[in-house]
């Protein structure tokens, strides 16, 4: 019922039904008016409440609609994301498949091109190749100064070929550039000419002519697949060469920067002769020079004749060497210098890591007598006694541990006696471990730790022995290097280059090693007069090095 109808009805009822006093009527009407006013207010409030409720309901409906829309969008987004992921994976697989097909096609194309080239060039135009090796970096000590006498052979045992790990101790700039020109003839025979130039300096400057060792280190020609040898099972694969070269079958422990065998010089040889199906041999003759005989100025020349044999995984190398009149050469510190020598090597090479895991490993033993007692660089050292003897063992390998780590341990040890002087005795042993930890596709952390033991005794037969000359030294060297490294693909293994490295090295050594100089006056600090560690100029027993380096080969 509406408020006007109600008030009118009540008023009429009161007016018709009551003939009471006018004053009572007035009071009643006032109360009615008041009641009506309150009802109007209540009705307004009810309408406002109703309106608010409707607004709230609308808002709730809107919110619900928005929530539904959002939910729908989320679902759409998830669906789209999943679809995109699937499409991306499919695209990736297709790309990889395409890459494989492209590589296969490339290989086939190269084979076809090579076949066509062979057909098209019956006289085999020159094939030119360029290969190289380079490293360039600098090292600084704690005070920001450059360093000298630092490298893998920086310890007292380094004189005898005892290395420490090379990472973080190479401040030199060394480059090799190898240029080959190969001509293949219609018969299949080929000739190859090689020129290799090299240079090494310590200075960081760009103009280095005053310090340069720029030099031709190899210059030779070789002939292979010769028709004259065809049909002979022994010689059909033989390669002839002559000139100045590094022997083809030299090999090294990269982490020590140490060749196991470094046979080089000027001479001639024949490779890949096969006396039996499983036996391959190389026979070479090299010449080197030791210096002149005064006052005749006659040049002392050493000769190294080598038979290097391979039977399965075994390598057996036998070398004889001689140097006429080497004992007459002056000045050399030794008396009764060797004029001949022998050298033997027995090696075992595996295409895996010691028969245990993926990688490779090499193990062997070397023995030398007389001129052969320099067991690494054959026939290259003339200041050895005629009774000099050395025996060296080595083993090293490379293997991945998992996708995140790989390891390369290396060990070498040597004992020598009557080497520089009759009665001297030298022992050293070097253990090096390099670890690499790929972090991303282009960044890895390299860690290297070296322990070297040395016990060095020149004996009493040092010429012009003075009281200040140290004839004995014994002790340890430790080296630790940390090298954050960038390269093109860190998953490709230890030998992926170029490598761009930062270097932090800490070295510590026994105090007894300071001042030992193989029977020569000790190296000392010019200011304090203290004995120094080999040629480094460092006193004390430890040192930090910091640096940067690039190393590459191809």
């Amino acid at each position: 019922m509406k408020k006007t109808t109600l008030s009118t009805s009540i008023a009429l009822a009161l007016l018709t039904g009551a003939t009471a006093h006018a004053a009572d009527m007035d009071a009643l009407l006032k109360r009615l008016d008041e009641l009506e006013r309150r009802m109007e207010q209540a009705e307004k409030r009810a309408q406002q409440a109703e309106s608010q409720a409707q607004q709230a309901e609308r808002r709730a409906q809107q919110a619900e609609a928005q929530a539904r829309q959002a939910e729908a969008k989320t679902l759409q987004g998830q669906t789209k994301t999943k679809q995109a992921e699937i499409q991306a994976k499919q695209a990736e697989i297709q790309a990889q498949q395409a890459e494989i097909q492209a590589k296969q096609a490339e290989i086939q194309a190269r084979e076809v091109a090579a076949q066509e080239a062979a057909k098209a060039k019956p006289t085999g135009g020159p094939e030119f190749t360029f290969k190289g090796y380079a490293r360039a970096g600098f090292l600084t000590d704690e005070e920001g100064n450059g360093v000298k006498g630092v490298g893998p052979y920086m310890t007292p045992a380094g004189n005898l070929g005892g290395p420490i790990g090379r990472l973080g101790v190479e401040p030199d700039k060394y480059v090799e550039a190898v240029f080959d020109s190969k001509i293949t003839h219609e018969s299949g025979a080929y000739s190859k000419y090689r020129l290799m130039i090299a240079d090494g300096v310590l200075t960081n400057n760009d103009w280095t002519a005053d310090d340069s060792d720029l030099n031709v280190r190899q210059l030779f020609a070789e002939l292979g697949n010769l028709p004259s040898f065809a049909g002979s099972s022994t010689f059909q694969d033989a390669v002839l060469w002559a000139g100045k070269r590094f022997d083809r079958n030299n090999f090294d422990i990269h982490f020590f920067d140490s060749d196991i065998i470094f046979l080089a010089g000027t001479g001639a040889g024949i490779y890949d002769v096969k006396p039996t199906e499983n036996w391959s041999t190389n026979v070479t003759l090299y010449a080197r020079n030791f210096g002149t005989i005064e006052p005749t100025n006659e040049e002392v020349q050493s000769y190294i004749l080598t038979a290097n044999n391979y039977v399965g995984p075994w390598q057996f190398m036998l070398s004889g060497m001689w140097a006429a009149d080497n004992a007459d050469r002056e000045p050399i510190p030794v008396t009764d210098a060797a004029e001949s020598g022998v050298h033997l090597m027995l090696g075992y090479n595996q295409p895996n890591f010691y028969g245990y895991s993926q990688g490779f490993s090499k193990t062997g033993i070397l023995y030398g007598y007389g001129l052969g007692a320099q067991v690494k660089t054959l026939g290259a050292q003339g200041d050895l006694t005629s009774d000099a003897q050395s025996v060296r063992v080595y083993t090293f390998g490379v293997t991945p541990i998992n996708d995140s780590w790989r390891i390369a341990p290396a060990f070498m040890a040597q004992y020598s006696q009557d080497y520089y002087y009759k009665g001297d005795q030298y022992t050293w042993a070097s253990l090096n471990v390099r670890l690499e930890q790929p972090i991303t596709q282009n960044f890895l952390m390299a860690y290297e730790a070296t322990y070297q033991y040395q016990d060095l005794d020149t004996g009493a037969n040092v010429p012009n022995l003075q009281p200040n000359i140290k004839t004995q030294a014994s002790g340890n060297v430790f080296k630790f290097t940390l090298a954050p490294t960038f390269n093109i693909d860190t998953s490709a293994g230890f030998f992926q280059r170029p490598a761009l490295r930062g270097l932090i090295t800490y070295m510590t050594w026994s105090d007894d090693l300071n001042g030992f100089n193989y029977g020569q006056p000790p190296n000392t600090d010019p200011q304090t007069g203290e004995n120094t560690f080999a040629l480094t100029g460092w006193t004390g027993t430890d040192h930090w090095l910091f640096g940067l380096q690039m190393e590459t080969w191809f």
Partner: protein
Amino acid sequence: MGKFITALVVAVLGAALAGCGSAMQQTANQQEELLLAAGFAKKPADTPEKMARLRRLPLYEVAVRKKGDQPIYYYADPNYSGSIYLGNEANYQAYRKLLIERNMRTPPVAVTPADMEAEAEWGVLGSR
């Protein structure tokens, strides 16, 4: 100082070697599962002679040798399964496809050492 550093080096090396074994076994198991799925045939090296020859091959990586004009692919595992896995070109391509599907790196194929190429050296290990 020297003794401490020696002990530290020995400890680090020991830990590295201990971790090495289990990681390698896991990798080997994963590879062998893929090879079998690709159709490679598993042949146990069940005699000392076979095992000795197995250890002269490239280990834990797919390698190839030639048999006539056809390549034979193999994967040698002397330590965990004591077997060699042999496959032909189709098996190798299937293996590569599986690597790609699993987003795994496809390493280069190793080459059999020259002295192991001869059939007389290889024969005892069997062929596909």
